[in-house]
């Protein structure tokens, strides 16, 4: 019907399946994020590291360059677990800063403008809402963490041969699993904090503050008590411990792997709890 008729009418067309509706939020959230030139520029900058690594890996296998530099292949870059742990550390750090900027944009504006009842008065659940927003962050952060990581792994496999790939196949799963855990954790932290601090800028500062505070507090606890308990309060330490195990690399963080997993799960659980308290149509004052 043409808009000029300006009449109310019921809708009798087909409906989209309910399970797929969370993705609508992801689509809108991603579109919204890339409207900011600053964030787009920051996002592009995040590809600088993988590009350098890519060039490094290529040079590492280029005989004429090696001859020119009078060096051996493994003297430029040694592509092993340590290399990928460092790569994920660098990209994970960038992902964290990016999340501190974009994470609060996901939930805080909806809470500040009271939009949640509009979402939940439809056949759309709170879990779908959180999942939709989380997916937007997951897609974005995947592009700067495990996707370039696996591309690097693929390039190295291509240049070193199938034998290298088979020998180091655990690195590929480590890249993927380590990145996914890190993305999930920082996304949940950013979303939970933005749900509690409705002001977007304050929420961003809070994300940075909480992470740095936890790291500092954890280090202080370790120093004062001469123990490793502080590592459990530091998300960075927990993820480094888990990733080191995934890549088969030694680490100075002396806590067991399973306890690091438990620590990460507890942190994610806390964030989900915080979200479940705040992401609701109306707050009930009891």
């Amino acid at each position, binding site marked *: 019907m043409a808009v000029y008729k300006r009449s*109310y009418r*019921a809708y009798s067309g087909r*409906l989209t399946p309910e399970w797929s509706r969370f993705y609508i*939020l992801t689509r809108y959230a991603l579109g919204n994020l890339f409207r900011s030139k600053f964030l787009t520029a920051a996002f592009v900058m995040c590809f600088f590291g993988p590009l350098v690594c890519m060039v490094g890996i290529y040079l590492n296998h280029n005989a004429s360059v090696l001859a020119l530099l009078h060096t051996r292949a493994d003297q430029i870059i040694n592509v092993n677990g340590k290399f990928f742990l460092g790569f994920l550390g660098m990209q994970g750090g960038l992902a964290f800063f990016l999340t501190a900027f974009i994470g609060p944009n996901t939930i805080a504006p909806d809470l500040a403008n009271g939009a949640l009842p509009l979402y939940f*008065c*439809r*056949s759309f659940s709170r879990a779908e809402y959180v999942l939709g927003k989380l997916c937007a962050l997951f897609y974005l952060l995947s592009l700067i963490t495990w996707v370039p990581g696996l591309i690097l792994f693929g390039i190295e496999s291509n240049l070193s041969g199938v034998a290298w790939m088979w020998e180091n196949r655990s690195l590929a799963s480590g890249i993927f699993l380590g990145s996914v855990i890190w993305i999930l954790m920082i996304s949940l932290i950013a979303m939970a904090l933005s749900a509690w601090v409705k002001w977007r800028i304050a929420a961003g500062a809070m994300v940075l503050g909480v992470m740095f505070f936890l790291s500092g507090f954890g280090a202080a606890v370790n120093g004062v008590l001469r123990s490793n308990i502080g590592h459990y309060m530091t998300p960075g330490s927990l993820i480094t411990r888990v990733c080191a195990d995934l890549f088969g690399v030694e680490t100075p963080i002396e806590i067991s792997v399973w306890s690091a997993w438990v620590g990460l799960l507890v942190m994610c659980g806390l964030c989900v709890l915080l979200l479940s308290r705040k992401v609701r149509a109306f707050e*009930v004052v*009891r």
Partner: protein
Amino acid sequence: MTPVIELEGLGVRFGKRDILKGLTCSLSGRTIGLLGPNGAGKSTLINTLLGFHKPSSGTARIFGHDIRSKITHVRSVVGYMPENDAFIANMTAVAFVRLMGELSGLPSEAALERAHEALFYVGLGEARYRKVGTYSLGMKQLAKLAQAIVHGPKLIILDEPTNGLDPPARQRMVRMIKEMRDAHDVHIVLCSHLLRDVEETCEEVLILKEGRIVHYSNLEEERRANRRFVEMEPIGDTAGLALALEGLGCECAFSGGQRLKAVLSEGIEIRDIYRLAAERDIQLRRLNYRRDTLEDIFLKAMETN
């Protein structure tokens, strides 16, 4: 016919406070008004019907679907316009309404088409590419209405739709509600403090006080009943006129000097009163239907409970 809303001992409790206390009724009108003083439980009732609050006792059904077990289905047939500000600030109105349409299950293209239609329908057609955050209060109300109707729901719940609107905008909103009610197969629940809005638009009224139903009124039936109740101001032999009317089976009573009130019996029309007055050479200075306004009903309900 399946009632629009059925309440069956519905109770809602927040902590130790009972907010709704055993509400029971069945509402079938095209437009249902929810009235009550502040804190009566109107918004809580709406929120419970939408599944935002869990009933502590009893249940409710919308179009026969239980809100406890079929809330997803209930939500798919309901459009809701909340009382407070509710929008996405950095989105244009058309993107905002489209998003809400998509979340209601409309495919992307259909949602876009209907978003344009809904915005034109509510009168925001020319401003539909402006960000909702830049809208005036009245425009935000209209944008909220547009998102409530974009998916063509069978039941539209409007919580204080005329809040903050200037008189012309209020008139437009009331006109729109009436038009939706009259022209389409849609039911409307209107929650408002403004008795005039409810009186103008609603067929049924539910009055709440302290979480209880204190009065249910079918305004349509009352309007029909009240057409038999007239008040007149005759000059001349008033007593004679009263006797003549009583002779035709009407009930008469004097009130304040020359004023005469009468409940017309079946088959008696206004022209019969004029005829009787003419036969007795009585002037009728004034004659009008006297009926209880919604304000009378509301105040009575508040006083008696």
